[in-house]
């Protein structure tokens, strides 16, 4: 039973993906490339070699975390669009802790991780406070806090900690010893043990909702605020925590970027991880494990489309972005799959199981 239910929840996203691929194929044919070739490039680009797989993972990991961060908000019926700002603040916090902190490897990493969590938490908490206590709309406040986060972090980074040896807008780097070494399996892709933080966070979150009272209460507030209030739950308090917790999860992205990838805070390092996280969370149906799957898909698509520009004659960077957008558009419209296809699937199942499901 449970298996069948899971299977069914997979059919819609899958058929959406197939439809999206079909429309993309038409577009590809129009510009004069072979869809087969493009599919092959996509596959090779995403996981053709250990290095490519590593880079897909590299994009997947932050998306898992931002997806989770957004999902925590959505489960409490809050649209946390401030994730981008939260991870930006966290990255700067991690970098500063790394620069200032003790240069002992373990201590430095622990401090950097704690700073990232705290930075994300703080920025999420401001949003939570504004929503819960000051009745600000979380979308407006979130967008504004994103701008403030960009402004403050760039100002701090470029005026006080700027890397004098580089033209790039970035802070001075951490010492090499504290940066997390990459696994040699992925060749030179920046993948080390830090990527495990993402599935770990997903697992913890899954446990949080399944077993803890706080998790249950947070969801109750989202599912039926009236009933929750009747039951004596403080809605404002749960909303605050949903946004602050989201910020904390987003903060891990900052740690991973600084310690696992660049070794410093680079202004504008995130290619909109926070915003992509919204789509990741929705496609993953807000379930922690669904989010892992959808983030993997998004990460692979992002990396795969990177290679299209390189491997084909007519597909440019901009066209690759269109293809990416088409796929994501269809994925996020997963519920709009024509009833016909759904019905046919039901019919097939009836024939297989010999009864109405």
């Amino acid at each position, binding site marked *: 039973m449970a298996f069948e239910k899971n299977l069914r929840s997979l059919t819609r996203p899958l058929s959406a993906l197939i439809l999206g691929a*079909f429309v993309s*194929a*038409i577009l*590809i*044919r129009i510009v*004069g*490339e*072979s*869809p*087969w*070739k493009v599919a092959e490039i996509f596959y090779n680009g995403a996981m053709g070699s250990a*290095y490519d797989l590593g*880079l897909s993972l*590299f994009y997947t990991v932050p998306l898992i975390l931002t997806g989770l961060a957004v999902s925590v908000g959505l489960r409490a019926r809050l649209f946390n669009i401030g994730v981008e700002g939260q991870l930006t603040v966290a990255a700067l916090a991690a970098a500063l802790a790394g620069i200032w902190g003790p240069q002992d490897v373990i201590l430095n990493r622990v401090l950097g991780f704690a700073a990232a969590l705290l930075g994300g938490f703080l920025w999420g908490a401001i949003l939570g406070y504004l929503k819960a206590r000051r009745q600000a709309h979380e979308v407006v406040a979130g967008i504004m806090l994103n701008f403030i986060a*960009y*402004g403050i972090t*760039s*100002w701090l980074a*470029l005026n006080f900690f700027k890397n*004098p040896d*580089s*033209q*790039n*807008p970035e802070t001075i780097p951490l010492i090499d010893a504290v940066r997390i070494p990459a696994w040699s399996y992925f060749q*030179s892709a920046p993948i080390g043990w830090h990527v495990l933080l993402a599935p770990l966070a997903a697992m913890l979150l899954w446990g949080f909702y399944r077993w803890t009272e706080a998790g249950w209460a947070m969801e109750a507030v989202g599912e039926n605020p009236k009933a929750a209030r009747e039951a004596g739950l403080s809605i404002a308090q749960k909303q605050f925590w949903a946004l602050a917790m989201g910020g904390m999860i987003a903060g891990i992205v900052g740690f991973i970027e600084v310690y696992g*990838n660049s070794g410093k805070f*680079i*202004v*504008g*390092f995130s*290619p909109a991880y926070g915003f992509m996280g919204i789509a990741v969370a929705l496609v993953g149906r807000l379930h922690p494990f669904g989010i892992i799957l959808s983030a993997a898909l998004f990460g692979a698509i992002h*990396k795969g489309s*990177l*290679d299209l*520009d*390189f491997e084909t004659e007519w597909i*440019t*960077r901009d066209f690759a*972005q269109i293809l990416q957008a088409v796929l994501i558009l269809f994925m996020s419209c997963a519920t709009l799959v024509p009833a016909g296809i759904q019905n046919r699937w039901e019919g097939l199942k009836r024939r297989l199981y010999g009864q109405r499901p």
Partner: protein
Amino acid sequence: MTRLATRFFLVLGFAWIFAATTISLSAAPKLKVGLVLDKGGKDDKSFNTAAFLGMEKASKELAIETKFVEGTDDNAFEPLLRSFAKKDYDLILAIGFSQAEAVKKIAAQFPNKKFAIVDAEVNLPNVRSLMFEEHQGSYLAGALAAMKSKSGKIGFIGGMDIPLIRRFLMGYDAGAKSINPKITIVTNYVGITGDAWNNPPKAKELALAQYQGGIDVIYLGAGASNMGAFDAAEERKALAIGCDSNQNRIKPGFVLSSMVKRVDVAVYQTIKDATTSTFTAGTMRFGLQNDGVDLAFDEFNAKLVDAKQKAQIAQIKKDIISGKIKVPDYYLVKK
């Protein structure tokens, strides 16, 4: 009926999509050149466009095979450079300082490939660094701006506050003061992130504000954002000086001149050297003496600059080349 039609089109669509596409095979082994453009992209009418044109010229004149790609985000440069290196490209050109670290890493991994980078120095035995003496060109821009200014106030709008742009500003400042020691120079930057190079509305706002304050010539060093400031110049009937590519034609009559940075020449030269096996690693400098930087004078700004001013600029240029005028270089002053 509609269902039938839908099916018909679906089948037709499938047939069309999966129809075989022709694959062309090239025979003669040619030098393969890969170009990785910065985020601004091929059509920024400035820096990346210049690089692209340099490669276009080379591919027309020399027996080479070329391919260009544009970076999507800061993390994309490394895989793109690596893809070129793995795909038997002989020479890989990276445009822009944001690729410095990626080039450092990939060039070390592929010691048999040749690399070149514009605007950054990477010291490896297989990398040529193409550096431009922007301060020299900016000195001329400053001198011309001071000659044209009636108010004694001139402006500067940079993309981002980075060493490269400071170098522009320092040269501009020195050039302007060489003509009018009491001149006032007002400086603004478009932004604090990479978007600053591609934000024409913000540049327009800044330019309008500067013109409002009595400034009558603005020197622009803001990549694709320059476009917005040119609009402002037209609106206020004032003057602006472009940079990187020759931007005189964009708003004839309002673009006083352009401090051209011949990225196209540098790119072409590097490709040509690779075809004749005279490619050398190390830093190659492009300044006034080898026409790597210059002020552009053409039919579009002919009416704005008179013969006397032109002669004066030519004299300053000669003096810089001969070493009689020392232009302060931010890169050296800083150290």
